[in-house]
């Protein structure tokens, strides 16, 4: 079980787990629940570079389409093919098996939220 207080959060409802210079990125339980059952995930190419704040993927539910924003500048070092094959992991385990991409970064952006700030944002 991921300790949610160790994660960073964005106002786009993504979470970031930092390990050295690699950020693992997923969407929060709040975002997954709002989307509904996720049925399709499109992720960026491994090896490509991403720019913080830009759209790098899509998360589709039965009802709607959500965009995945890169929370940091950097290079995609891994994508979660398990979640591409079984998108329901985004709903069932958003902070674990449902992670989406790993990005090697040089600096974290300003304005990331901690757990308390994020829960306040979503009104929980």
């Amino acid at each position: 079980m991921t300790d949610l207080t160790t994660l960073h959060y964005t106002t786009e409802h993504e979470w970031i787990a930092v390990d050295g210079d690699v950020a693992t990125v997923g969407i929060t339980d709040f975002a997954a629940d709002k989307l509904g059952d996720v049925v399709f995930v499109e992720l960026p190419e491994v090896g490509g570079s991403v720019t913080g704040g830009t759209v790098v993927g899509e998360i589709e539910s039965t009802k709607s389409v959500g965009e995945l924003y890169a929370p940091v500048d950097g290079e995609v070092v891994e994508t979660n093919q398990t979640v591409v094959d079984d998108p329901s992991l985004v709903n069932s385990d958003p902070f674990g098996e449902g992670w989406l991409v790993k990005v090697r970064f040089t600096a974290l952006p300003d304005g990331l939220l901690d757990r308390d700030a994020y829960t306040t944002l979503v009104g929980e």
Partner: protein
Amino acid sequence: MPDLPRSSPLGDIHVALGAAFTDFAGWSMPVKYSSDLAEHHAIRNAAGIFDISHMGEIAVRGLRAGEFLDATLAGRLSALDLMQAKYTLLLNERGGVVDDLIVYRNGEAEYLVVANASNRDVVAEVLRAGAVPFDVSVTDVSDGIALIAVQGPRAQEILERTAGLEIVAGQASLAEVRYYRATAATFAERNVFIGRTGYTGEDGFELYADVRDAAALWSALTVAGAPLGLVPAGLACRDTLRLEAGMPLYGHELGADLLPVQAGLGRVVALTKDTDFPGRAAVEAGAPAGSRVLVGLVAEGRRAGRAGYAVLSADGEPVGEITSGALSPTLGHPIALAYVDPDSSTVGTSLAIDVRGSRIPATVTTPPFYSRKK
């Protein structure tokens, strides 16, 4: 300041069940309780229970009620048997669809007109405006009625097992009542009108009950149904279920500027009846040449076209637009309803859907996408 959305008489139950809510036609209604996919599959395989109390019910009473409805709506309602239902349309003078309706004949001189929540007031207004010469009364009875749908292959069994729900002597039993027929029951000593109708493509019933009994009836149905796999179901799965069944949704496949024939509903307009009715002349004149028609589209993969997405020819020319689309939970591939140019509407035509810049190949088909086994 906009009005707050209205709450259903079952609102407290939905909150207790942990529903997520959505604003729909001015009502706050459950969009899902747990997983919309699980709810969808439950209705295909067992049963689900929906609160659709936002729908409008308008009672039309009088000896000439059938004649009046023939002169107002597109169908021949005077021909309905007692306790029979009919899918029909209210048209404007241009032949466009004001609303699609279910009409039940629930008495010798009494009909119940069921309208979409968003169109309840306009339908009631049109009916009232024409009622006087026919000496019929038109009463919007929606606020007194809770509408609960139990849908799925186990629906009949669930209603039969529901404590306190008793068919009125002389009325059809639940086993006897056929599709688009109705029966009468009591619950808590008050009347419940039960139609074998629905919007999911499965067998099922819609129960019109007194709002005062709504919570108790919902609970009794749930207690009876839970061991058979009944789950509470929200509007999200209702939409994917009706889409798979190829059923139109007002505001998507139907609207004031679309003729019934464009939506594949030409047969719903009874041009053989003697009476004039709004829209008749326009329907008889036909849709202008080149008018788009509603088709089904099927695609491969998992990326679904959605309402508003462009439909392209094989050469990439725009030929239409999707009105509803989803990854079909039952079939596992994308399905959509779309209005396309007539020369792109032939079954088997290869088209493409513009999914946010990517072209997804799609093939024209005839809805429904899913039909239950009889």
